[in-house]
């Protein structure tokens, strides 16, 4: 064994049971016995929960009493408790970077079936650490100030709530929404469960508050191009897409829309889920924030042929005197500096075409729940009247639950809101049309305040509930009663028979899915996704809105399916976490950065060109490269490429890594 960095190492090794998480599958005592005989180890101990107060005290006391100068804890992932134990080391009187953590839970006990091999692997990893720590050196952390401004991505109810909370606390917020208006899915609903309060009555005031708040800078029809930097000091480049209407001139008066060369709306309105029509120049919905017109170049004649009479532009100029329409508008890139980022990009609904046996897209009277939300909405395409695509009013309606959810062929998860919104839609449809409504469900899941009571109320109202997964929706009819209707074929699993229920209208309660671009957003922000594509929280119970990237928080349905109450609660939590970070004022930076040995540097410039973060400059006087500590991310590219081996990376020096390998191979 090599001698390390000069000081004679006095190592303490602490092996954690983590209850039975580790001890159930690793012979902890054997690991401790093994560790106690390794060179340099002064003390080796086991403890049930090393992260507990008494556990940490063991470390602190041993440092003081046994003069330890290196500490190793073999327990869970460093993501969870590296900080805890570094802090304990510091409190014991040693530099926190003389501590090293070994993960024998996620990487050993949880993933190794055989106890013998698990124990052997734990020993090997501990030995690797014992060899490694002798090369550890005391390192200094750098404190950098935190920029007090916050970026929020996504302007659904999650982003809106977080923005208002932060802005009310006096922080400056940049809210970036991809669509023409903020509001997200909630803006499309008529009523919300379980209280059936009017969605726009509770949402619109918040949307307007966002627009009017002096601390909120709203970017709509905008996207994030790039995020750079680190906790406390991020730079975001925001792309403002052209809407061909000058924002601060438009007053949302609709005159341009009225004067469009298309006398009547002709193109499917995205906001109305294609059930209503709009013109090429349009305002997505009457409560839109900002209430500003936009021109869609895909359908506008001027963009297609340059031959339009441009009556909209003329009307805006001559009748309103605003001259807000600008066909030459270009996209624009804006750069902002922030200290924290909240991601609130929400979800998308399951594409019902993926289950062709439910007939969506083939039978006009099969609808998705989101379409029905528009149909029952008093500001929707039918003014709230429920008429089907063929102009009839439904007399019998079937609502199919769990479309795409809890299904191994599609998404295994429960989408959590569909039972409740199905009940809501059942109530609204019944109330508006008097139709007989059937719910087809696997299980009814109504855990929430007032939710079970709402279910009870619907049963009282006479809505039918049939337990069974629907096999198909078909226009294969066999009785006179079925003629002209859609038939829902289902095994009624409470009665034990296969039933055919004829209905006029089918509503598919589509589940919630991660957005198509979730992976892209994840990569931009360097955060993690679960295998399904939901953004991953740092800890499912104890850090539900933090991510593994410091300074970036998540809120709302982008983290997993959830209803509005949960979304709003999470958005508040994310805002509070961001506030905590900002009000601390500064953050400590991990010292895992590259350092250049000026003696060895030959001034060849190779590293400068390769650094992905432009963190390396050149000092002409000394003829050496210089690393900017604040910009260096510790990626190691320069370390690997330096021809003179002049660059090392703190916490990952060659000596440390080679000793670690030596240790792991020795067992």
């Amino acid at each position: 064994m090599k001698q390390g960095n000069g000081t004679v190492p006095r190592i303490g090794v602490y092996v954690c049971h983590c209850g039975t998480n580790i001890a159930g599958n690793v012979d902890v005592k054997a690991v401790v016995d093994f560790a106690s005989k390794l060179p340099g180890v002064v003390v080796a101990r086991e403890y049930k929960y090393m992260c507990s107060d008494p556990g940490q005290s063991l470390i602190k006391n041993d440092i003081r009493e046994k003069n330890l100068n290196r500490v190793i804890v073999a327990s869970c992932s460093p993501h969870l408790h590296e900080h805890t134990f570094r802090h304990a080391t510091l409190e014991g009187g040693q530099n926190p970077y003389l501590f090293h953590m070994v993960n024998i839970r996620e990487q050993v006990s949880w993933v190794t079936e055989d106890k013998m091999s698990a124990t052997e692997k734990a020993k090997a990893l501990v030995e690797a650490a014992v060899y490694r720590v002798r090369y550890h050196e005391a390192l200094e952390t750098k404190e950098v100030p935190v920029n007090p401004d916050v970026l929020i991505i996504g302007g659904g109810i999650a982003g809106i709530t977080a923005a208002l909370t932060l802005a009310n606390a006096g922080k400056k917020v940049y809210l970036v929404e991809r669509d023409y208006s903020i509001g997200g899915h909630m803006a499309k609903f008529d009523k919300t469960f379980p209280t059936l309060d009017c969605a726009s009555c509770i949402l619109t005031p918040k949307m307007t508050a966002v627009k009017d708040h002096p601390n909120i800078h709203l970017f709509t029809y905008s996207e994030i191009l790039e995020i750079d930097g680190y906790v406390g000091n991020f730079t975001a480049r925001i792309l403002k897409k052209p809407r061909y209407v000058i924002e601060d001139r438009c007053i949302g008066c609709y005159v341009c829309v009225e004067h469009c060369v298309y006398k009547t709306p002709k193109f499917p309105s995205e906001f109305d889920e294609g059930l209503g029509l709009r013109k090429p120049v349009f305002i997505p919905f009457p409560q839109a924030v900002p209430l500003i017109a936009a021109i869609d170049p895909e359908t506008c004649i001027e963009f297609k042929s340059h031959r339009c009479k441009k009556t909209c532009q003329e009307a805006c100029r001559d009748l309103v005197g605003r001259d807000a329409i600008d066909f030459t508008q270009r996209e624009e890139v804006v750069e902002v500096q922030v200290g924290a980022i909240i991601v609130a990009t929400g979800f998308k609904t399951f594409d019902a075409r993926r289950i062709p046996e439910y007939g969506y897209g083939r039978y006009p009277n099969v609808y998705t729940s989101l379409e029905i939300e528009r149909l029952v909405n008093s500001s929707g395409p039918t003014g709230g009247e429920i008429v089907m695509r063929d102009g009839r009013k439904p007399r019998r309606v079937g609502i199919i639950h769990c479309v795409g959810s809890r299904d191994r062929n599609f998404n295994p998860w429960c989408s959590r809101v569909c039972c409740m919104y199905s009940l809501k839609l059942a109530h609204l449809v019944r109330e508006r049309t008097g139709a007989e409504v059937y719910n087809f469900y696997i299980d009814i899941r109504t855990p929430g305040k007032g939710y079970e009571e709402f279910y009870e109320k619907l049963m009282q109202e006479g809505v039918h509930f049939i337990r069974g997964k629907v096999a198909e929706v078909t226009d294969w009819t066999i009785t006179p009663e079925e003629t002209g209707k859609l038939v829902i074929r289902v095994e009624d699993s409470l009665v034990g028979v296969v039933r055919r229920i004829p209905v006029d209208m089918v509503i598919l309660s589509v589940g919630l899915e991660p957005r198509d671009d979730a992976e892209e957003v994840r990569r931009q922000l360097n955060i993690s996704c679960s295998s399904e594509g939901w953004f991953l929280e740092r800890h499912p119970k104890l850090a539900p809105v933090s991510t593994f990237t410091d300074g970036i928080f998540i809120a709302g349905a982008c983290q997993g399916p959830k209803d509005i109450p949960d979304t709003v609660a999470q958005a508040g939590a994310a805002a509070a976490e961001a506030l905590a970070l900002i009000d601390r004022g500064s953050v400590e930076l991990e010292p895992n950065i590259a350092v250049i040995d000026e003696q060895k540097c030959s001034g060849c410039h190779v590293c400068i060109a390769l650094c992905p973060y432009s963190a390396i400059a050149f000092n002409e006087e000394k003829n050496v490269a210089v690393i900017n500590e604040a910009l260096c991310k510790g990626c190691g590219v320069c370390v690997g490429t330096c021809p003179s081996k002049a660059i090392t990376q703190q916490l990952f020096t060659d000596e440390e890594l080679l000793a670690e390998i030596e240790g792991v191979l020795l067992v």
Partner: protein
Amino acid sequence: MAYVYYPGCSLKGTGVSYEKSLLATFKRLNIPLQELDDWNCCGATSYMSISEEQALLLSARNLALASENDGDIIAPCSACYMILNRTANILRDDRTLRQKIVEKLKNVGLEHLNLSVRVRHPLDVLVNDVGLDTIRSAVVNKLTGLRVFPYYGCLIVRPGNGFDHPTYPTSLDRLLEALGCEVIDHPLKTRCCGGSLTGTLEEVGVRLVYILLKEAKKRGAHTLATLCALCQFNLDVYQEKAARKYNEAFDFPILFFTQLVAFALGANPRDIGLEHHFVPAEQVFEMVR
């Protein structure tokens, strides 16, 4: 691309018009189709449930024979298609079973069992290898105005075999469209034809036949296009019984899809086996001529 043709028992028996029209189709497309030499039963029938290993051996012998040639196997009968695919899947996954079968095949002089040989349905080959554009441009007798009820049956789209969606397949629809047919969309594409129930539980079998015929009639079809010898047999032969039992007149020619393809590509109607049908099938082609 070369193909090995595995007829199975039905294309030499009740489904002989399937064979004739299949061969005519491939001939019109100039695609060589070599019949597998010395083939045997695919292992369907009740053998599977009595002795699975023997049945697999029987089936695997065909795969071993085909391993001598290169090229995919074409198995037009849905049962053969399913069983041969299933055999290859089972043997790929189960090493012990595979070794046993390989040993036994060696005893009869078959040294080589290539489990990566692909077993294909001719519908798959026509739509996905030959391609609809090629077919569309090869059509000489466009089937304009012929209203066809496409019927897939239960076997070829089973999950795991599939070249198409298991509950709502569309390949046959698209192929028929390429021939100029008016294709009827309907929800019974993969519903049971009665299978062997027509022989064992006639009442149930005939009811299932009736459901399909009735729906095709209701939707104004001139004919039903099938792609399985048993489906064709049930719908053709039991048509009269269904009519009597349910007191409803049917006069539905039940065609193999290959008969429509071959005819459209210019084959002589005398070469596509129309004479083997119970319900006279010539009327369909007179209609388009």
